[in-house]
C-alpha cells in the first residue's frame, strides 16, 4: 500500500529512524533483484541496493506522494547501476556493438529464415536452455536498454511508470524496449543449438 509507505516516511521524518527498517524489509527483494539484473554481480547488487536505500533515506523529505515510493527506489537503483556501468574500468562490448559489427545486418535482415524451417526452429528452441540464453542476452544489452527491459518485463512496470521514472518520453521508452527485444531475438537466434 503506497499510502502506508507515506505514513512510514512521515514518521521517519519526525525522527523515528527505526521505522525506515519496515520500508527496507518491504522492498529489499525488489531493489536487490533490480540491482542484480542490471549488474549480474551479487556483491555489487547488494552494495547498490544498500546505497539506494541510504540515498533515499537522505532524501525522504523530498518524497512526492504523487509517485509510488517503490518506483522512486527503482529509479534510484537504475541510476546507480548506470553510474556503475559507465565508470567500470573494463567494459565488455555490448550486444548492440556485437550485432552492429556485421552480424546485426544478417540477423535483422532475417537471413536465418532462409535456412530454418519452422519445425527445425521449434526443435532448436526445445533443446536450448532458454533462460540462461536470455540472461546472457540481457547482460550484453547496453545499460540504457537493459534498464528499461528489466523495468518493463521483470519489474512489470507500465510504460507510463517507466517514462515518469526515467524522465523520458514514452515513445523513447517504447523504442528502447522494441529495440532491446529485437536485439535479444537476434542473440537468441544466434545461440540456438543445432539439432
Amino acid at each position, binding site marked *: 500500500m503506497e499510502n502506508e509507505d507515506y505514513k512510514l516516511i512521515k514518521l521517519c521524518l519526525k525522527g523515528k*529512524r527505526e521505522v525506515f527498517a519496515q520500508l527496507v524489509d518491504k522492498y529489499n527483494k525488489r531493489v536487490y533483484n533490480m540491482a542484480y539484473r542490471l549488474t549480474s554481480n551479487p556483491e555489487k547488487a547488494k552494495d547498490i541496493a*544498500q546505497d539506494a536505500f541510504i540515498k533515499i*533515506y537522505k532524501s525522504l523529505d523530498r518524497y512526492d506522494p504523487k509517485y509510488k515510493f517503490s518506483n522512486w527506489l527503482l529509479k534510484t537503483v537504475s541510476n546507480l547501476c548506470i553510474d556503475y556501468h559507465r*565508470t567500470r574500468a573494463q567494459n565488455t562490448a555490448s550486444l548492440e556493438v556485437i550485432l552492429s559489427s556485421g552480424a546485426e545486418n544478417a540477423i535483422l535482415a532475417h537471413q536465418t529464415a532462409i535456412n530454418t524451417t519452422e519445425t527445425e*526452429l521449434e526443435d532448436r528452441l526445445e533443446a536450448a536452455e532458454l533462460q540462461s540464453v536470455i540472461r546472457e542476452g540481457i547482460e550484453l544489452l547496453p545499460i540504457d536498454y537493459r534498464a528499461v527491459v528489466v523495468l518493463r518485463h521483470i519489474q512489470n512496470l507500465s510504460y507510463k511508470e517507466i517514462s515518469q521514472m526515467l524522465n523520458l518520453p514514452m515513445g523513447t521508452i517504447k523504442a528502447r524496449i522494441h529495440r532491446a527485444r*529485437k536485439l535479444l531475438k537476434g542473440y537468441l537466434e544466434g545461440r540456438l543449438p543445432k539439432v
Partner: protein
Amino acid sequence: MPSCEKYEDLLQQYLDKALDSAQTAVLMSHIEVCSRCRLDFKLYSKIVAGLEEMQDLTPPGRLTSDVMAQVEGLPGFDAYVQSRQPAPWFWGLSAAMAGAIAVAGFLMLRAGSPTAVINPPMIAQQDQLPVLPAPISNIDMDSSPRAAGQRIVLNVGGGQVQVQKANSTKWQLASAPTDLGFGDKIRTLDGATAHIEYTQDKTTLKLRPSSLVQILANAVRVFHGDTWIRVDKIGSHFQAETPNAVASVHGTRYSAEVHYPEKIASFYKGDLDENKVARKFLDQYTKNLSDSRMNGLFPMMAYPMHATPVSLAVQVNMLLDALDATKTVQTNVQVFQSTVNVASIDPATNREISNVIVKEGHQTSVKNMQLAKLTPMAEDDFVKWGLPVDSKLLARVGEEVSKPINEAGMTLTPAGVRQVPASDSTGMKIEAEGRGNPGYDGVERRQ
C-alpha cells in the same frame, strides 16, 4: 520481405498487449500465411515469457540490518536539506549519468618520448592572475540576457570560480549567485565546480574543475575542460562550440530520431550535411505518417518535439607536440538524452569537414585537427601561465602544419564502452581562442 515490416511493429505492440481484437486478428492472419513472421512470433513470445518468468533472488539476509546500521549513523534530515540541488525527479537519469563523466582538461607536452604530462602551477591568489587577451571582438555586446528576456545565473558549486566580464580583461572571484552577460567567460580552478542556468528556459551548464567557457545567447564556447549541458530550449537552437567542433542541439529537428533507432543507424555512414539528414528523416517520417496502419506506432506525435530535453557533455583536451610545434585539440561529445548533431570544423579553413548525429548513449570524438600554427598569442599564453616553453617550440612558432592526423577524424562509439581517464585533470589554463584559432572568430559556420 518489406511488406512484413508493418507486421513487425504490430507484433511489438502485441507483445506490449496494446493491440485491440481487430488489430490482433490482422496480425494473426498474417502470421498464418507468413512463415518468417511466425518464427519471429515464436521467438519473441519465448523471450517475453522467459523474461517474465525469471525467478526472484533472495537478497542477503543482512541487507536490512546493514542499511539500518548506516541510517543510525547519519545526521538528522536538516543536514541534507541544506546541501543539495533541487528536484530529484526533474533531473532524473541525466544527472546520474552526468555524475559518471570523467574529469578532463589536460595539456600534454611531448618532448620526444616518453610523453610527459605537465601540471601547470595553480593560481592561488587573485592578484597573481595573468591578464588574458581582450575579449573576442565580434560578439554582440549590445544585446544582453535581460534584453532577450532572461537571466543567466552562475552558482558556485565549490572551490574558486572566476568570471571575466565581456567588457573587461580582469578575472574576478565569483561567490554569491552572479548574473552573467553574453560574452562573459567563466573558469573553474582546480577542484572547483560551477552551475550556470539560463533561467527562462532552464538550459543548464555544469562545469567540472579546470574548465573555461564563454557564455553566448544560444551557445557556449568550451575552450577546455569538461562541461555538461542540459538543454530544454523551446523550439530553439543551442550549440556548444569547441576549437574544432560544434555540437548543436536542434530539438525541433532531431528529437523524433529517437523513435527510429534502427533506421537512423544507416545515417551515420558517409558525409551527410545536416539538411540532407533532416530531409531524409522527414521523408521517412512523412511516409510513416501516411500509412494509417502505422499511426500510433510512433507516439512521439503525442509529444511536442521541443519537450524533449537534450543533455550532453563536451570535453576538450589539448595536446601540444614539441617536436613539430603543433597543437592538437580533441573534443569528445557524449549524449545522454535525445540526439545531437556534431560537426567537425577545420580551424584552418573554418569549414565543416564532416557531420554526424550522435544519439543518446553514444559519444563521438573529433581529433583530426592539428592547428595550422602556434601563433604569437598562443606563445604569450604559455608564458603568461608560467608554462615551460620548449625553445624549439618557440623557434618554430608560425610554421604551417596542415596535415590532418586523420582524414575521417570522427569516430562514433557507444558511450558505455569507452573509458575516459578519470585523473587527467591538471588545471590547464591555456586560452585557445583568438587569432590562433579561427574556429573562434565568431563567424557563423552553419546555415
